[in-house]
């Protein structure tokens, strides 16, 4: 349920050159969720009856052992409430020459185990716009169509989810004994608070040449403090990962949008080009520079002086005569798979770059000639690196083994007998105590780090708008046919391995690139 209070008032003398628009509201909502499910055995289609089974009595399996059916009933209910207060105001002066705006909001919601400060904090922003074109000294400059300067500053944040100031339990029931049970979902961590982002943005809008060329350029800086990360934790305390506010980082970037209207007559051509650049750096970390190799490789801990999306790798040193991986230390010594992590330190790893693209954007060209339209849209991401997946699911990964060893072509190139190490880098498969180190060091080495830069063809669309003259004797008032092709894939990629940087194919085939999709639609009104 929401209530809102609106004000939209013009004032300022006889020509009402000032305007105030103001909105304030409160909203509260409740979600009641229920779920009932059951399992039935021996269903008879004729009588619609089911068999009575005793879930706790043993029956004999085909091997002669004993087994029970177990219970199939599940019931759950969940209640969740949320509360928001919000307000927006915009005050424009002198017919929009100067605009001042602001917003404020406060959201609270049900989160078990969290204290009030943890759940909700007020967030606000403030902005201003100076429409320079409306100034008297700009009135005569006809070659400038629009010129405006924008400035905003705001505070935003993220709630820490999944951990609270008190331990949280989850209730259930034991199916065999009917006792009520509970497991501990998350421990009490009183140090966890909101992740806060303070951002500042300054932008310039400019257009000229009779509005044919316009661009908007924005420069922003952000300071994020108390970044929430699920850090690896010592399982001796009972938890192997916990959410912490672990670091502060600053980032800045540039966004540029350019719109060019080349032609405007019967033949129209418009280009829209977007470019973004972003860089970030961790300025403070709760934990010191990591001595923890597993974390550096996983990219999980923020490290002072590095961007948040860093990528580190082992220095590859080839295979040994048993087909197992070797890596270099910082002094050039070779370490074999039999030597454990305690003989390495973080300086033996190599910094490879950032895993999210620093340069990104898109290019859209739209053409139209009389009643035909055509649009082509590209997107690009440049400057980042990623790990290429090579062999997977070699038999000694702990945990799951799904009975097949991936289907990568690299498997055919693996080491098979002494001597192969001269012409292959893919480790061999042996059931050997060093197998885990051999495959994990290969997968995390600099050999498998490739550039992620690429350009994608996102969409081509085309359409035809039937002119009214053709429709006069038909019942249609307007008729228009459009078609588009989406997800056409990569136009150019920097890596030579044919890898699609956005969709790494894993051995479980859960991450395939979307296939091209074709759409055609007919729009009409009668």
């Amino acid at each position, binding site marked *: 349920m929401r209530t809102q209070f609106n004000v939209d008032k013009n004032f300022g003398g006889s020509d009402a050159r000032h305007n105030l628009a103001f909105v304030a509201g409160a909203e509260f909502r409740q979600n009641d969720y229920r779920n009932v499910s059951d399992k039935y055995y021996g269903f008879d289609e004729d009588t619609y009856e089911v068999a009575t089974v005793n879930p706790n009595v043993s029956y004999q399996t085909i091997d002669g052992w004993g087994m029970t059916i177990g219970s199939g009933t599940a019931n759950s209910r969940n209640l969740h409430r949320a509360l928001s207060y919000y307000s927006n105001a915009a005050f424009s002066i002198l017919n929009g020459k100067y605009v001042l705006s602001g917003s404020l909001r406060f959201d609270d919601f049900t989160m078990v185990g969290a204290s009030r400060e943890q759940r909700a904090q007020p967030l606000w922003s403030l902005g201003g716009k100076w429409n320079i074109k409306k100034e008297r000294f700009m009135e005569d400059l006809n070659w400038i169509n629009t010129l405006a300067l924008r400035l905003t500053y705001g505070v935003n944040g993220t709630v820490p989810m999944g951990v609270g100031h008190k331990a949280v339990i989850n209730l259930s029931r034991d199916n065999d004994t009917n006792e009520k049970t509970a497991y501990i979902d998350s421990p009490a961590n009183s140090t966890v608070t909101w992740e806060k982002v303070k951002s500042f943005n300054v932008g310039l809008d400019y257009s000229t040449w009779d509005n044919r060329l316009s661009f908007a350029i924005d420069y922003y800086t952000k300071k994020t403090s108390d970044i929430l990360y699920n850090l690896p934790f010592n399982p001796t*305390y009972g938890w192997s990962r916990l959410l912490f506010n672990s670091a502060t980082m600053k980032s800045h970037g540039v966004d540029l949008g350019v719109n060019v209207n080349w032609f405007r007559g019967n033949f129209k051509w418009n280009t829209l080009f977007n470019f973004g650049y972003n860089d970030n750096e961790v300025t403070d970390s709760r934990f010191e520079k990591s001595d923890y190799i597993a974390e550096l490789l996983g990219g999980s801990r923020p490290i002072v002086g590095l961007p948040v999306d860093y990528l580190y790798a082992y220095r590859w040193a080839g295979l040994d005569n048993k087909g197992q991986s070797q890596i270099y230390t910082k002094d050039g010594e070779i370490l074999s798979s039999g030597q454990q992590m305690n003989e390495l330190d973080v300086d033996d790893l190599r910094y490879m770059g950032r895993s999210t693209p620093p340069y990104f954007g898109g290019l859209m060209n739209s053409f139209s000639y009389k009643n035909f339209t055509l649009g082509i849209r590209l997107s690009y991401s440049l400057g980042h690196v990623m790990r290429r997946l090579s062999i997977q699911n070699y038999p000694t990964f702990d945990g799951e083994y799904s009975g097949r060893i991936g289907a990568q072509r690299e498997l055919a190139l693996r080491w098979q007998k002494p001597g192969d190490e001269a012409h292959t880098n893919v480790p061999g498969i042996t059931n050997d105590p060093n197998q885990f180190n051999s495959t994990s060091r290969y997968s995390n080495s600099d050999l498998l780090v490739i550039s992620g830069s690429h350009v994608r063809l996102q969409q081509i669309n085309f359409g035809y708008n039937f002119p009214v003259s053709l429709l006069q004797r038909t019942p249609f008032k307007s008729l228009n046919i459009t078609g588009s092709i989406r997800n056409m894939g990569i136009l150019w990629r920097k890596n030579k391995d044919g890898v699609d940087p956005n969709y790494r194919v894993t051995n479980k085939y859960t991450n395939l690139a979307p296939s091209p999709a074709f759409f055609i639609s007919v729009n009409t009104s009668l």
Partner: protein
Amino acid sequence: MKLKNTLYSLTAVIALAAVSCRDYVEVDTYTTRTLQYTRDYEYVINYKSNFETTCVFPLLTSDDVAAHAGDVKNIWYNSEFYNAFIWAKSYYGDNQQDLGWDNLYKHIYISNQVLDGVMESKGGTSEHKNLIAAEAKIHRAFAYLSLANQYAPIYDPAKAGEQQGLPLLLKVDLFQDLSRVTLQKVYETILDDVLTALPSLPDLPTHNYHPSKLAAYALLSRTYLVLRDFNKAAEYTDLGLDLSQELNDLQVYNGNISTFPRTLDDPEIILSKKAATNLKAPINEELIDLYSEDDLRFQMYLGIDQYLQGYAFLRPNFTGQGIDAGLRVPELILNRAELYAREGNAGKTVEMLNKIRIKRFETDKYVPLKETDIDKDLLQAVIDERRREFVGTDLRWFDQRRLNLDPGYTKTVTRSYQEQTYTLEPNSPRYVYPIVETVLELNPEIGQNPR
């Protein structure tokens, strides 16, 4: 008119704002909550998965496993199993976690979390709170005993004050120091936990995943045997035997195995816990030779497996519920037999051995043991019976460790793997497991065990 309207709407907003204050969202959801009421703590104790799963390495490192096991093609998928099999310098690779360590310390955390708040919780009688606290203490003591017999040196009464023990966590503090305390202190804590829990526990459990006085006596029996305080061990074992001597008569299930009692209904189980995985491994031929043909344990628990090139341990398949790794009545009986043997009492030793054996043979075929059968070496007779009874479980490793202090009872164990021989000599430092690197990297104060 316009002013009145704005005034009305403004009051409406303010009224609603006042009503929908912070309390609105602080509602109890149905399945999640914080620990407030005594019954919440009871529910945590009721959840058997919170305390059930223990470890896996003792199954691999004990001499129940055949010497050729590692060479069976693709017998194990995890490289850490091969490493444990050959008692290697380090078991785990770079980023792996140690399941046994993690599981047992998780039990300790949950016990600590319960003990942290149960006494101040709302809505329960003080007997109820004491019962819940007592159950948590037993689980914590069990976990520490299990950890101490894997990752800490073999307990030697003369040296325990200086031996490196374990990180001892007795309260919930995510940032407490993890330096190890002495082995003496670890065992003192275990005994303190069990002895203070005893008065509040019921004699027998409602369900066998709940601790009871019987479980406490069995745990003390096991602990005092490790501490080599044989008088105390005898005292508590007898108290336990007074409460229960129930055994499954195997002949009833011979040929009828699908009716074998499930864990919850098994009268032999005092405190139910399960090993972390069902290990597949051929059984040592020396152990196979200890069985006689008529022994139903040999006929039912073991079976020839072509793939393993030897006998496989089949008991976990009876009900598909995993390998028992908790406290059981046969252990109480055989502990007493061992204590009589150590006293030199042949008559009582033989009585205890027969008590178990009669339920492990067909009654008309069973020839009871006589004193003269075993009086050459009473202790060895008991050790052999323990091996026959506890085949495939983790108890053999714990026995092997403590028998190192009985000169002459521990032999060098030899294994071969990939054409290399590996040996475990008596009193070798490799009777102590290495601590996994991931734990040491995060808290180096724990310190690695010398190998």
